[in-house]
């Protein structure tokens, strides 16, 4: 009789535990994890450099996206595993204008209010084997013209005044990527971690 009670108890506890874990298992199946973040996926400005800290602080409320005037902030809606519902910016589609509304509205410490020059979303890189002025296919300068930080982040090369070079002040907003007329986008944004060394050189 006691063994039976024990058996029933174990079964009940098992059923309870299954019930408790079931919703989370379902979400894990529904949003499969991404092995690697894709190139050009940036966090919004004001996010900590450490992506783990960002994911731990983001509650997935979507407020940053809801105030973004260019609607550049997108969300991991169907992927990302534990990162599901966190925001990202794909500057190839639409880039951040550093207006700062997302930092102001974020209720948590996922996005901290910083001046645009300290946003640290990443660092732009230029492929000098494809960029039109760098391969002498014409003069362009779209990236330099559009940069919201002016001469601090991107400027023209000293030797050839049509060739763009990245400077130390770049925060990686990605507007240069958005406007780049080259079909293969020879300018892109590296995440902030890898970009701490060899500024502006490829």
């Amino acid at each position, binding site marked *: 009789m006691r063994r039976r009670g024990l058996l029933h108890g174990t079964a009940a506890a098992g059923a*309870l*535990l299954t*019930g*408790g*874990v*079931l*919703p*989370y298992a*379902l*979400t894990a199946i*529904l*949003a499969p994890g991404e092995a690697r973040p894709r190139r050009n996926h940036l966090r919004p400005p004001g996010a900590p450099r450490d992506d*783990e*800290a960002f*994911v*731990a*602080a*983001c*509650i*997935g*409320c*979507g*407020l940053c*996206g*809801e*105030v*973004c*005037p*260019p*609607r550049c902030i*997108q*969300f991991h*809606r*169907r992927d990302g595993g*534990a*990162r*599901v*519902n*966190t925001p990202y910016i794909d500057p190839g589609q639409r880039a951040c204008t550093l207006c700062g*509304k997302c930092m102001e*509205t974020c*209720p*948590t*410490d996922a996005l901290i209010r910083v001046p645009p020059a300290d946003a640290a979303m990443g660092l732009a890189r230029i492929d000098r084997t494809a960029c039109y002025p760098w391969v002498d296919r014409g003069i362009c300068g779209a990236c330099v013209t559009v940069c919201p930080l002016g001469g601090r982040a991107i400027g023209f090369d000293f030797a050839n005044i049509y060739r763009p070079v990245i400077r130390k002040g770049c925060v990686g907003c990605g507007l240069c990527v958005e406007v780049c007329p080259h079909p293969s986008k020879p300018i892109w944004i590296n995440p902030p971690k890898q970009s701490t060394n060899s500024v502006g050189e490829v």
Partner: protein
Amino acid sequence: MTAAKRKPFFLWRHLNKLRWLSLSLVFAMLVALPCLHVYQTYRAAHAYDLLAPSEQRFYDIMETLTSPLTDDPAEDLDVVKGSTWSGNFWGLKLSDPLAALGHISAGLTLYWPFLLTALIPLVITAIFGRIFCGWLCPANFLYELNTNLTAWLQWAGLKVGHRRFDRRIKYLVLAVGLLLSVFSGSIMVAAVYPPAIVGRELYYGIAQGGFGVGMVFFAGTLLFDLLVARRGFCRYLCPGGALYSLLGRYRLVRLRRLVEACNDCRKCNAVCEFELDPWRDGFGQECTNCAACIAICPTNAMTFDIRPFDHPEQGPGHLGQRYRRGREEQMDEAV
């Protein structure tokens, strides 16, 4: 015999209508805000001439709706943003206490500017109990409509679910969610919490070009309610409901049966979405103060009371047969 003359305040019978109004308004807000955001982005970009005809129609509608309110929609409409999970209302930031708890457990930090946004909901819950579930939750709005659908299906002769489980499972869901948040370093409860899902998915669907996975999960919970247990997710699985139940355990404002006006018809038990036992004074911590039992009571025997505990069971209603029979027996014994 002064007690027999106690009558509930007459407006409380109509609170349930007010509750439906509140639920509809919250849901309408969650639909309207993403639309307003899309309109704002069009305005900010001065993009009218670049839009497709359907988008221009949308722009015109939104312009007609908002022009009496503001001249500068791109800036002025930012005053209300967000959802019930976390929102910004005229400068007042409010968040779900579950979001605060999830934030603490995922980062193992206390970030006060965020935790303070959950303070007002916390105090309201301590006074009114699970009022968020009954009065504001956008998922509850859909779940209650789903209950009506269940009733129609049943009327049409289809089989619907009426299984019962242990109500304590949801506390386990909450505990497991917080533990998973600690170990995974991301706020796991947000992914299984229907009000957060509904707010988010409406935004994704309208402004981001498509629903996310949360919609699949939410559809699953609707089916669960339909086929397995009536209002099953709220009652057995919702981690937020569990948190609000715990916070509202000693709530001050609670429902109470006036035993001298009760006729034991048990309509309150039938109408209770959470299958509580108002007829036997069994409200407990799970009651959402939704006031459906007040609205349906034919003898005005349900009212609000201010006390931190439920009344102990008061026995059969004085207008009911059982009470009268008992009285007659007592009279016989006395004679």
